[in-house]
């Protein structure tokens, strides 16, 4: 009897204990709702109280909490001494796998103490929960907007005309209706797909396309004002686009984005960001080519200012020259800064990635490709999306001035062209060719290749061959250009992405990625057919693939985080100059691969210089500064600082190199026979 009681007691104790300590297992065999993600974060914090903290960023208009986890050695400190990596996932709320990746990353960090021993990790698994929730809601539809009400059609009601699921499959697809004014026709090769009729080819439109639903507000438009307002993923202040239907009224107009921006800017230790979503800066460096940027070495001065400065308005000047010219005109004692000139002349923001920074992006992308190959995840897949204006990843690069990386984890496998001709020149083949190999292809083949790769018609084979001959162009450069170009459309004219989806759906999803067109009697449109692509099918892999994809890709984050700039005092040297005078030298080193700071961080002035201070008692600096500022140190490079110091008696000085995003280091210097 007694034994039995004891046994029960033991059991109870064991159960309670396990209840307290055991992390409820997070399995990557399905996708998780924003609420489940929040629960998981809370679980992580409960089970790892010493190394984690939960930050509530805000609550969405749809009343879902936006939580972020902090993991690291300084969780209880308000002011950090070590740098941090910020990971933002699912900012648009339409990429379920990105949230799973964030949780996967959290688990890896918790498992591996070495990863969190000298840096903080901030991980936000879901930046736009209202939109993310839609993946788990019936009927299924993809919509990046949060639940902030918005009058899309600017009529007398708000959010009054959303979709309806007619065919009862809980999926919102499309409706096609035969209409004399229809512009769409089925694609000849695969009549499931629709394309716009091309009159030039003699095609006649048959159908009108609508999303599934009725015209609730009887204004002639279908589903034009569904519930929802702002896509958080494009609500950030770099290249924010005004007056769009889903971007919000201004950058940071939503609580979700505003509070996040505020948090990040109040945490100056954030040294690097990752964005998990639909772009991949790890694989494809950020794109340039935007217009309207001012070259700081070629600035034109408007006439009204030029006359005043007594200079030529037709000529261009460098920033430095202008600063010198203006300096004479400002009141004595006042320092002219770059930002002063930039605002004065209205030079505007940087909009293209700086060439210096592209160097590390490119180099790391090559490494990433090898990494993927090793993990057998290098199969050909559709291109990832380009970063959107106002996105988190662009804001992080341009305005925070830190290395901003992003990862998508899956796109549809590329469809193999059935009849790809042997001679077709691909970027891969080009890359391996020498100049001579290329020219040897001959004019006809090159001409064909130019045509098939969609080069502008004024690009003649002869011209390209000449360019290669005189060294202005190489096959390798051409391969790079080709990769940047949009893929040419297939001959049938269907959307290549849709084509890839259908192939994937047929092969891997038992056809569930597509709803076959079926007739339906619509209350106002009459006879219609309902069908089409299933939302999320082309950006969300089936659950069984999640774990393998994450295992093979997420750990790359650590490889990049390892490459962060790290400032150290490499060595010091003291030379006695006599009569109490010493020459002190210190080599300040960036032992990391990445530069301190990025070229953009230097340009936008947000990342402070390395601040080197000299402290102690009973000494005087004869030459040099008490606080020396080093604007930047490239990866694996050193910079030398030197002082002449006067000390009558033996002294011990503290040399400190301080940064907020690349650690700090101290060294003692002893002067005057204290050996």
């Amino acid at each position, binding site marked *: 009897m007694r034994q039995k009681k004891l046994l029960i007691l033991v059991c109870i104790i064991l159960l309670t204990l396990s209840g307290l300590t055991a992390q409820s297992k997070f399995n990557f065999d399905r996708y998780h709702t924003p609420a489940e993600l929040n629960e998981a974060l809370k679980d992580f914090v409960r089970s790892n109280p010493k190394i984690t903290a939960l930050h509530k960023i805000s609550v969405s208009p749809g009343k879902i909490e936006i939580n972020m986890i902090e993991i690291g050695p300084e969780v209880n400190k308000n002011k950090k001494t070590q740098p941090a990596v910020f990971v933002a996932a699912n900012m648009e709320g339409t990429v379920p796998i990105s949230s799973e990746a964030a949780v996967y990353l959290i688990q890896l960090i918790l498992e591996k103490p070495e990863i969190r021993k000298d840096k903080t990790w901030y991980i936000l698994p879901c930046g736009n929960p209202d939109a993310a929730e839609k993946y788990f809601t019936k009927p299924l539809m993809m919509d990046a907007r949060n639940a902030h009400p918005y*009058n899309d059609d*600017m*009529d*007398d009601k708000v959010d009054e005309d959303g979709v309806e699921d007619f065919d009862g499959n809980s999926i919102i697809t499309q409706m096609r209706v035969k209409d004399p004014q229809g512009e769409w026709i089925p694609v000849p090769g695969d009549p499931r797909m629709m394309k716009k009729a091309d009159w030039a080819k003699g095609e006649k439109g048959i159908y009108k396309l609508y999303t599934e639903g009725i015209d609730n*507000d*009887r*204004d*002639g438009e279908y589903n034009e004002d569904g519930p929802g307002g702002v896509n958080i993923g494009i609500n950030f*202040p770099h290249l924010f686009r*005004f*007056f769009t239907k889903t971007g919000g*009224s*201004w*950058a*940071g*107009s939503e609580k979700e984005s*505003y509070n996040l*921006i*505020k948090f990040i*800017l109040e945490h100056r230790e954030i040294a690097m960001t990752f964005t998990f979503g639909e772009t991949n800066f790890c694989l494809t460096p950020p794109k340039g080519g935007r217009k*309207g940027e001012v070259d700081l070495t070629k600035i034109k001065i408007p006439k*009204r*200012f030029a*006359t*005043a400065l007594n200079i030529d308005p037709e000529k261009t000047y460098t920033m430095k020259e202008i600063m010198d010219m203006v300096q004479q*005109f*400002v*009141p*004595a*004692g*006042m*320092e002219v*800064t*770059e*930002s*002063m000139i*930039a*605002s*004065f*002349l*209205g*030079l*505007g*923001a940087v909009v293209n990635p700086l060439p210096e920074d592209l160097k590390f992006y490119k180099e790391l992308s090559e490494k990433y490709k090898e990494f993927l190959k090793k993990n057998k995840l290098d199969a050909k897949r559709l291109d990832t999306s380009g970063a959107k204006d106002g996105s988190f990843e662009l804001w992080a690069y341009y*305005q925070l001035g830190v290395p901003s990386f992003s990862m998508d984890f899956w796109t549809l496998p590329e469809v193999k062209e059935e009849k790809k001709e042997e001679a077709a020149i691909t970027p891969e083949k080009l890359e391996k060719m020498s100049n001579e190999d290329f020219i040897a292809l001959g004019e006809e083949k090159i001409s064909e290749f130019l045509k098939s790769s969609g080069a502008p018609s004024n690009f003649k084979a002869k011209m390209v061959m000449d360019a290669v001959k005189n060294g202005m162009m190489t096959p390798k450069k051409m391969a790079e250009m080709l990769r940047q170009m949009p893929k040419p459309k297939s001959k049938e004219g269907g959307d290549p992405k849709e084509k890839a989806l259908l192939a994937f759906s047929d092969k891997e999803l038992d056809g569930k990625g597509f709803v076959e067109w079926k007739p339906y009697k619509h209350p106002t449109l009459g006879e219609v057919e309902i069908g089409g692509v299933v939302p999320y099918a082309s950006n969300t892999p089936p659950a069984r693939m999640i774990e393998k994809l994450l295992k093979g890709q997420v750990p790359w984050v650590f490889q990049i985080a390892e490459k962060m700039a790290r400032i150290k005092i490499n060595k010091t040297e003291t030379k006695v100059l006599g009569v109490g005078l010493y020459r002190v030298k210190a080599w300040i080193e960036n032992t990391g691969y990445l530069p301190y700071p990025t070229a953009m961080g230097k*340009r*936008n*002035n*947000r990342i*402070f*210089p390395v*601040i080197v201070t000299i402290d102690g008692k009973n000494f005087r600096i004869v030459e040099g*500064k*008490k*606080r020396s*500022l080093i604007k930047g140190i490239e990866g694996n490079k050193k910079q030398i600082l030197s002082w002449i110091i006067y000390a009558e008696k033996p002294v011990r000085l503290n040399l400190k190199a*301080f940064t907020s995003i690349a650690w700090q280091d101290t060294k003692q210097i002893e002067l005057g026979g204290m050996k």
Partner: protein
Amino acid sequence: MKRIFILLIIMIFSLSAVYFSSNQKHKVTIPLSFDNYYTYETVVEAVKALNKAYPHLTKLDMVGKSEEGREIYALTVNNPKTGRELDKPGIYVDGNIHGNEIQAGEVALYLLNYLLTNYGKNDEITKLVDKKCFYVIPVVNVDGRVHFFEDANTPSSNRSLRIPKDDDRDGLVDEDFPDDLDGDGNICTMRKRDPFGEFKTDPEDPRLMIRVKPGKKGEWTILGQEGIDNDGDGKINEDSEGYVDGNRNWGYDWAPEYVQQGAGDYPFSGTGIKAIGKYIRKRPNICMVWAFHNSGGLFVRGPSTKGQGAYPPQDVAVYDYLGEQSERIIPGYRYIIGWKDMYATYGEFSEWMFMINGAYGFVGELFQATAETFKSIKEAKKTKPQTEEEMFFGGGNEFERERLKFNDHLAQGELFKPWKPYKHPTYVDIEIGGWIKMSSRLPAPFMLKDMVHRNAAAIIFSAKHTPEVSLDVFEIKKAGKNLYRIRTRLHNSKAIPTMSFHAQKVKLYAQDMLTVSGKNIKVAAGGKLTNIYRNQVVYKKFRPELQFLTIPGFGKVEHQFLISGKGKVTIKYQSRHAGKIEKTITLE
């Protein structure tokens, strides 16, 4: 060139310096007096006193708090007996977003005082207050106002919001302010005798200095603002308060610090700015905006950056109408375009109001230095205007000499501090002197009343021109068996349209609506009557009983409806900026 000068003064906050009993406590009595400047505390007292004296016409709101925890107040003037706030055109007025630009607060206070004390006495004002709703925030940068009064300053220092910022990026924050070395409450200028200096004493007025010609011997080196190198970095006064400029921190076309100094880290990073933004978003009836600053004597409209292109011509016409009239109300002030005639400003307040909230607005740059004149009409006719070089190089020129005479004979010497020797820790033997805090950008108190009244009159003129709409059913005609044709006319008798053309173009919000309804009727067709003589109607395809429209300034919009049935028909007009009107007719 003149512009550059103004621009340097406005944009670069430096040089000179006070008296004018800035510490003397103002007695607050209603009606308010405007013979001296109000401190932050007395501004709050004044607003509360007005609220207490006119409880039926005013509403006091604590909008939010500043970085240092001070309260920001708004006073609403609305007569509830003539309608709800949101059903009347709203006029928003604020001032002193830059801490040193204190007279802007006086303009706002004067407007409140004038409207309230004249209500029921002056017909024009009574009518105005009955028809419109005024939202007034006299002091936006409350911390700035306090520090301007209490701390030693130049006329241009202390603009910033009190968001600490490491200007010299040395890891220390706000550690090297200017210092009031002689303890007079002003940050003046330091100069040192120096045979190699670039300046010499002005032969006409020994208090001034002029630049020496190349190759000639100098007498003075100007060392800049009064101060010492507090942080020992070899620079003097390089990291004072802030700098985050409240008027670069709004949501439209905001650009970061490296593009524009003073931007702050992100739009609405200022706590007071954010609170005011929220306050404004809850008042969609605001259609006219005035934000007061100093100095220069300007009415500035957007665009505030070149990149965004010109405003729609119809909106420009509205601005011109109001701007040109304001130039007449306040002679000497110029109506200008921000980016073009001044300089680019990103994240500017009035631009946010126009581009995002659909309200027309001006920045009023108060005062013009030319009012500090000292010459007879005869002399004025003879004097050459200042050359650009004279203005630009500053010091010792005609303009400054004249201001000194103004100082001597009108301000009895209170505006300029004579040079006095001082032992400086770094520069050793120097002299301190120059224009004091309450000079230069602030009118002498005796000029205050004229300035506040004229500027309030400009606000009142624009307020009178916020939209006023009448609805007229000017035809009811039998058009068939059981079918009626009715025609309506909406007329706006004022200059400001019921919705800006920009707002229409980018679809900021829904247009005005005209609805026709009734129990026993059906609107078979309805649309805009585009030509009444030729009976041209553009019928709306769907929901003809609901029409969307905008009534231009001094314009009309006519509609035609074909209605079947009989009985009562209600015609309703509602607008964000022009209120609501309802009319009932009977078809029989």
